[in-house]
């Protein structure tokens, strides 16, 4: 199984009736063929970043080998081709997240930059002293700190939706928090620490009743479930390329056109202007107003290849397969004596946080690593979640469509090894 054939299989996978074949998929990922501490690598840290298929690696190589030129400015063929390749990805992303409006897609460095952009630009213009920003206890630090910085600058107030012991949002408490001073609700679509899938459509509808805007952090959702921003009806949506098989350093902010048009620029520089004099400059149209300087052209093209790759498999097939694998993993892990799974939301994605009696998560991580099993340990950039659940840290296994039951079994064996060593 591990004799790698690195040929992309996209063409065959584009057949609509194609059967989901995890064994074939694994061979698309060079890193999954490698060894770690003399064991075949079992990569279960997908919530941190995903591995890259050969198709994405090849797209990056192809760009730098044959297409490299700056975009939006050259009159020569190479630049025109690079511009076309870059702008084609905007269309791919627009279709992938269900907007279809290419000018509503802004390329950024990642989810973190997307949220900072909204907080600085839209927030700076629309949030005043006494206004309320609602976040949740499940948020990643990147959907907390930009709003704190904004609140410190403006005198706005941050309120927090609490969670239950299962790791689900208290929607009753959320409704109590909403009022006429609420300007923004920032909510994660899927919790990176517990896997909870939040009812973002319902949350958005409630916020809109009070005229508040809604930002959805889609870093964990876009790689694992089909996403349609029009259906959610949110106002801002952010995600990262590297968690959906794309390169690092590229991500997407989506927002409605009228909102983007009313927002001031985030950064100044080339490409985002229409005209410049020392007295005054005027801004380019959206999305270019928000893409100052030479963007991550290769990254965007790599993201395009990643979206082609996952849509070639089918997001519906990915979610069905991951759910089945999650069910298997939850059943097996929860059966191990002395292991407790943290978070039990009814709607959940393939993220499994767990703790073991008498063993600190960091020690679990080190011993698993020795068995070639890569998981994340710590607070997962979610210290408020850990404080709420009264634990310092967890061990977290997060699955992707290229994982299989054998990976889960190797995780189970490695957990048994922890018990052997710690008694």
């Amino acid at each position, binding site marked *: 199984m591990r004799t790698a054939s690195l040929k992309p299989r996209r063409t065959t996978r584009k057949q609509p009736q194609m059967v989901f074949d995890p064994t074939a998929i694994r061979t698309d990922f060079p890193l999954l063929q490698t060894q770690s*501490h003399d064991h075949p690598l079992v990569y279960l840290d997908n919530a941190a970043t995903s591995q890259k298929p050969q198709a994405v690696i090849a797209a990056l190589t192809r760009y730098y080998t044959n297409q490299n030129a700056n975009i939006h400015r050259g009159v020569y063929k190479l630049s025109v081709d690079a511009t076309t390749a870059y702008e084609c990805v905007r269309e791919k992303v627009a279709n992938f997240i269900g907007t279809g409006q290419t000018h509503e897609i802004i390329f950024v460095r990642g989810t973190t930059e997307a949220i900072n952009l909204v907080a600085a630009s839209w927030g700076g213009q629309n949030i005043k002293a006494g206004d309320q920003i609602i976040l949740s206890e499940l948020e990643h630090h990147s959907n907390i700190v930009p709003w704190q910085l904004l609140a410190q600058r403006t005198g706005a107030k941050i309120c927090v939706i609490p969670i239950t012991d299962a790791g689900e949002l208290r929607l009753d408490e959320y409704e109590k928090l909403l009022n006429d001073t609420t300007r923004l609700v920032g909510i994660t679509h899927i919790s990176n620490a517990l896997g909870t899938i939040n009812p973002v459509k319902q949350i958005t509808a409630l916020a809109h009743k009070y005229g508040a805007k809604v930002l959805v952090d889609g870093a964990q959702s876009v790689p694992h479930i089909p996403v349609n921003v029009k259906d959610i009806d949110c106002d801002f949506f952010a995600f990262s390329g590297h968690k959906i098989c794309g390169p690092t350093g590229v991500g997407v902010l989506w927002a409605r056109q009228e909102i983007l048009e009313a927002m001031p620029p985030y950064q100044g520089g080339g490409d985002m202007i229409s005209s410049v004099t020392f007295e005054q400059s005027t801004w380019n149209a959206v999305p270019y107003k928000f893409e100052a300087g030479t963007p991550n052209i290769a990254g965007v093209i790599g993201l395009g290849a990643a979206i082609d790759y996952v849509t070639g498999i089918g997001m519906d097939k990915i979610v069905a397969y991951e759910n089945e694998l999650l069910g298997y993993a939850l059943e097996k892990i929860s059966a191990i004596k002395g292991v407790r799974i943290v978070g039990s939301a009814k709607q959940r994605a393939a993220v499994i946080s767990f703790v073991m009696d*008498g063993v*600190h998560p960091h*020690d679990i991580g080190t011993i698993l690593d*020795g068995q070639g099993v890569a998981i994340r340990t710590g607070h997962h950039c979610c210290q408020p979640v*850990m404080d709420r659940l009264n634990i*310092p*840290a967890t061990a977290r296994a997060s699955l992707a469509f290229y994982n299989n039951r054998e990976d889960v079994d190797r995780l189970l064996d490695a957990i048994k090894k922890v018990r052997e*060593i*710690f008694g």
Partner: protein
Amino acid sequence: MSDHRELYQETILDHSRSPRNKHAMPDANHHADGYNRLCGDKLSLYLKIENGVIEDISFIGEGCAISTASASLMTETLKGKRLEDVSPLFEKFHNMVAGSVEKIDDEEMLGKLLVFSGVREFPVRVKCATLAWHTLQAALKDNSKTVSTE
């Protein structure tokens, strides 16, 4: 090496399961808090120093096996030691766990602390082993602020 028994030696497991000197000390005359952001380990260290001698030393806190065992073995080692002996010992200990010297010298001086020699193979765990010692330095300076291993 792959089963990590080199790191998790029996003495370390023993001290992490049943840490020595793990209690608060109301009449301590030196105290500091330590924090390891990577693992979320928190440690409070208490010392009673009389005439340049560590008469008593204890700690409380939660952490991984390496950091708990390190705090436990450090307190056991330092009880009754003169203050001027602390810095040279920490230097030897740090060199051993950080792998900054080729060969561990002065094994006699390190004594039981030699069980941490396996840490040098695990660069991300060095901070776990040194948290107690960094906190000790802060306590001896009478620095009541929280120290971090960052």
